[in-house]
């Protein structure tokens, strides 16, 4: 699959598999198009070439009605949480259930409380999104992502900007929900230790290509210098510390 924004090539003929029932991580430096990849999978963007298939359906050849039907089987956790700010936590989670089912309110209440209980926020049901901490907002968004019992959940930078406790909670939740709900998870992140601790398979993206892939252990032991620099967080290496410029002495001595 290839995708460009204007003249800038974001993905250059990449190919990847997301196995059912596993946690697959997409990692890479900022600006490599990780979030764009999730939008392509969700059908919000269209690739220039190639195709994206989910359960045998080519996402971009589906009619709007069929795409919406497919999206009911996908959950997505946005980086910002994307909670609707004018309704409370309970109504945010009830929103997709009310829209897509004919369940009565008592059943919806039970479902919402179960989803909230799974993320540990049953007691926060009456709070407004503005009253939640960043970690809590992401957990509520996680509960909303699983509201319709999807088969696949996509997590966009779930650990960014989280304190260690919230980070630990989110790491644990992603792994445990994947197992208990028999989900297929895609985690897009550049938080290396957290993502590696829960992933079954990792794709490393850079410059529009997949530069490495494999199980977390295999990537940790990789000899590839770029992979090593990214995983170990080394400041200098194949990705240089300095932005391209003339030599420092020459630059300093110039008038």
């Amino acid at each position, binding site marked *: 699959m290839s995708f460009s924004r204007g003249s800038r090539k974001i993905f250059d003929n990449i190919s990847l598999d997301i196995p059912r029932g596993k946690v697959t991580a997409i990692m890479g430096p900022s600006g490599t198009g990780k979030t764009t990849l999730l939008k392509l999978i969700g059908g919000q963007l269209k690739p220039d070439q190639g195709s994206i298939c989910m359960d045998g359906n080519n996402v971009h050849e589906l009619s709007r009605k069929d795409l*919406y039907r497919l999206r009911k089987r996908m959950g997505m956790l946005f980086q910002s949480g994307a909670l609707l700010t004018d309704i409370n936590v309970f109504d945010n989670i009830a929103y997709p259930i009310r829209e897509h089912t004919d369940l009565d309110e008592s059943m919806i209440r039970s479902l919402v409380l179960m989803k909230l209980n799974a993320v540990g926020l049953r007691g926060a049901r009456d709070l407004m999104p503005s009253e939640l901490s960043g970690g809590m907002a992401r957990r509520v968004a996680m509960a909303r992502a699983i509201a319709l019992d999807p088969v696949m959940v996509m997590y966009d930078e779930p650990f960014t900007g989280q304190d260690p406790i919230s980070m630990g909670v989110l790491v644990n939740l992603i792994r445990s929900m994947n197992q208990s709900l028999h989900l297929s998870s895609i985690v897009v992140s550049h938080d290396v230790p957290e993502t590696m601790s829960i992933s079954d398979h990792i794709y490393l993206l850079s410059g529009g290509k997949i530069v490495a892939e494999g199980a977390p252990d295999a990537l940790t032991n990789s000899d590839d210098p770029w992979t090593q620099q990214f995983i170990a967080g080394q400041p200098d290496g194949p990705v240089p510390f300095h932005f391209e410029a003339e030599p420092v002495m020459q630059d300093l001595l110039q008038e």
Partner: protein
Amino acid sequence: MLDKLQLIGQKQLAIISRLGQATVFLYQILLTMPGVFIRPSLIVKQLYSTGVQTLVIILVAGTFVGMVLALQAYYVLVDFGAEESISQMVVLSLMRELGPVITGLLFAGRAGSALTAEIGLMKSTEQLSGMEMMAIDPMQRVMAPRVLAGFMALPILTAIFMAVGVLGGYLVAVHGVGIYEGVYWSLAQAKVDFYTDLMNGMIKSVVFGLVIVWIAVFEGHDSVPTSEGLGQATTRTVVHGSLAVLGLDFLLTALMFGDI
């Protein structure tokens, strides 16, 4: 020289392209409109935020405009001994022009800017994308109720503006400059034609309402999701909305009252 021509051409093409995008956007909203009627609570909520919350500014502005009109009419008419015709001038000005136009301008500033800011913020915080991914069409749930509510709210606000304007004029004419109360009301009643004056004014307000909310929701949806982009979109809504009201007012007046 060629560069300048090229630049002008590019700008013209950009404007036409944007107009096309806005038209397609409105068409998409209109397609989803039947679904909005199934959920009247969405329309009621938007009627409150676009209509009820604009009411105070309309009441205050309407009263003062009516009072000023009466005062100015008195200063002019008294020289000809025709000051008893104040009500005719106040009522006709309000119903034909000032009612729909000033209400439209205030609506663009108050409700239009709020709509753009709200939708722009929903876009920048990924709420619209979130709805899309929940298989919920934001056109139907977010845009269409707002367009419909704005379209319904402006004629009602215009009618209220006209009514309080006439009352404001009454205050100045009867209690301020001493025109006989019966003359004020009877002349107002006798000289106003329901179709020519009142209905034409209301038709204007319906057109203005649709255009203002169309501009407001399009600018919000099309805004660059940054604080600067949102500010620019809000400004564009007020500027384009106000200019559209004034431009369309001329066009509609020419069609309704003139022989152009």
